[in-house]
């Protein structure tokens, strides 16, 4: 179980659980059809967000994708402002303009989220370039899927980051699918980390459903970036439990084999780690129950508040097209 401090292990666990519950609340309310934004849930993939973001400071930059709720929460975003955004309300993190696919919180280093596959990868490198030019110690971490690694812009980004030794960590969440298309229909082999060698940078793969493995492997990459030694490509294998978009499972529609999903659910990052923590005595069932209830209460309250929050005025449509110079 690695040499990771018990307190840290617990933090990692609570974060995973928090993300899981955040997403499950969406599943609960989505059928009411009043959360009008396409939600791409990360249930099953929580360990990566938790394990990587545990190494980041508030000032560090984070870039995510259409499947970004977990990363935003792990970086510290307020769930209320996310829910409010998904409900299209003024108090949402983008004042209702962005929705689920485009969360932003510049104060936390999340300057904006793109739903164009691969679109955020170069912007993350740009943030790292800014750190480099300003001689800051800020690290830039970018999450993206296996599908995104097929986009040319991924390579263009790796090349420039490696060339300039920029402080960026490339984190590929390989869940073996892009919408319903399996990795084997899209790439000649499943090992995305192997592209690192082409750029002379470290590349490694680890079990993305094991939060301690994620935490341990990300530590070196973030440290390397912070020390000015350049980028690293991390690949974490994982699996999404829900369909590509929305709260339903796509196995019913024949998109993915049910047996495949079930095998991965056996390896649930949250339940598996909870079992270990209970066995190791790092947490008791009662502590777990209490914390879960606390989280649920908070998330339920946030969700209810978000749903009750005011909509933007229609004329807000025309605001924010251009930045107004002050």
């Amino acid at each position: 179980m690695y040499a990771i401090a018990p307190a840290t292990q617990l933090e990692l666990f609570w974060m995973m659980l928090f993300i899981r519950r955040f997403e499950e609340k969406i599943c609960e309310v989505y059928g009411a059809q009043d959360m009008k934004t396409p939600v791409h849930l990360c249930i099953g993939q929580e360990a990566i967000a938790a394990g990587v973001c545990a190494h980041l400071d508030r000032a560090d930059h984070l870039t995510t994708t259409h499947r970004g709720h977990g990363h935003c929460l792990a970086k510290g975003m307020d769930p209320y402002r996310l829910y409010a955004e998904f409900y299209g309300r003024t108090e949402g993190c983008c004042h209702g303009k962005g929705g689920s696919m485009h969360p932003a919180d510049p104060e936390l280093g999340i300057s904006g989220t793109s739903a164009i596959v691969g679109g955020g990868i170069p912007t993350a490198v740009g943030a790292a370039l800014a750190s480099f030019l300003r001689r800051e110690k800020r690290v830039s971490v970018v999450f993206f899927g296996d599908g995104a690694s097929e986009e040319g812009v991924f390579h263009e980004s790796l090349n420039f980051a490696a060339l300039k030794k920029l402080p960026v960590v490339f984190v590929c969440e390989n869940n073996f699918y892009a919408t319903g298309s399996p990795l084997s229909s899209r790439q000649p082999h499943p090992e995305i980390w192997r592209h690192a060698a082409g750029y002379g940078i470290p590349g490694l793969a680890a079990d993305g459903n094991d939060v301690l493995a994620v935490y341990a492997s990300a530590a070196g990459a973030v440290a390397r970036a912070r020390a000015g030694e350049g980028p690293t490509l991390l690949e974490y294998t994982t699996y999404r439990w829900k369909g590509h978009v929305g709260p339903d499972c796509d196995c019913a529609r024949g998109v993915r084999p049910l047996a495949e999903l079930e095998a991965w659910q056996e390896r649930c990052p949250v339940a598996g780690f909870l079992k270990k923590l209970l066995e190791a005595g790092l947490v008791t069932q009662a502590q777990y129950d209490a914390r879960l209830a606390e989280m649920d209460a908070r998330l339920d309250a946030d969700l209810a508040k978000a749903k009750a929050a005011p909509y933007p005025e229609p004329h807000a449509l025309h605001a924010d097209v251009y930045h107004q110079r002050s």
Partner: protein
Amino acid sequence: MPWTKIILDKSAALSKLTEGGLRAATYCEALCEAQAQLLETDDAVFLLGEGLDEPGGVFGSIAGLSERFGNRRVLDSPLAENGMTGIAVGAAMVGMRPIFIHMRMDFLPMCMDQIVNHAAKWNYMTGGRTNVPLVIRSIIGRGWGSAAQHSQGLHGFFAQVPGLKVVLPSTPYDAKGLLIAAVRDGNPVMFIEHRWLYANTGFVPAEMYEVPLGQGVVRRKGRDITVVALSHMVWAAIRAAEILATEGIDVEVIDPRTVRPLDAGLICESVARTGRLVIADVASPSGGCSAEIAACVAESEAVRTLKAPLRRVGFAETPTPCSPVLEAAFYPDHTHIADAVRACMQA
């Protein structure tokens, strides 16, 4: 004529067609049938795109084709829009007839280099020695908070490019006939659909037929004002016309169907008769296809007959917002067209 007629209400359309012994199909079915028949009748045709072998792929518009024609005719693609477009272009340059499919039009900016700098120019750069029989299907999305990157109408980009043809079918009949014509055309054709047209029903013959590229059509004859509408806006224009008829305003609705080449003659002839013009597009007006339509009229003799300034109806001049409240304010519908018509009539 069932070939050009739009009946807004689905069940009315169905009973009308059945009465006349005519075959009804949805826009989505029409697309699917066109592709099936093209795959059947021409070995050079193949489909390429992301997620094509998914059950219910591309909103149903290729349903069953992967199973029926196999993975040498219906190819799933990696996520690499520019490269895959280049690959389709390359196959077309040596005589294949690929249909490249995008679920959203918003992904096309990624392949502008291969479309604008390559596909559009090969025939010219080679002095006519290498043509590019490529069709690129893409779909304009709308609603449910699709937001800024999943709802754009970018046909205005392509309509400016010599060497491209740009098609926006609005009816099931045209969806099938224009797609068949596009694949056989021998040039790169941007074939632009609208997600909200997929369930609409109309007359669709079973056999293969073509609707010629570059010919607009009068969807409704009228005396008082011309409304030129594109894609989904054609249906909104018909609805507006029906309302306005009750107010004594007789609207002519023209559907250009292709915006490059644009059937400027048909439009100008109509404006010369009515003296008034409203243009309705599935995009923000500034600089887009509605600008070109306006310009064609303004540089023709028809401009002399204009009794009032023309008006454009389109998306707001903003990126698409997510919030349902803002989305509602962003999109125009038949009421906006009707308002524009009334304003024009009074001006």
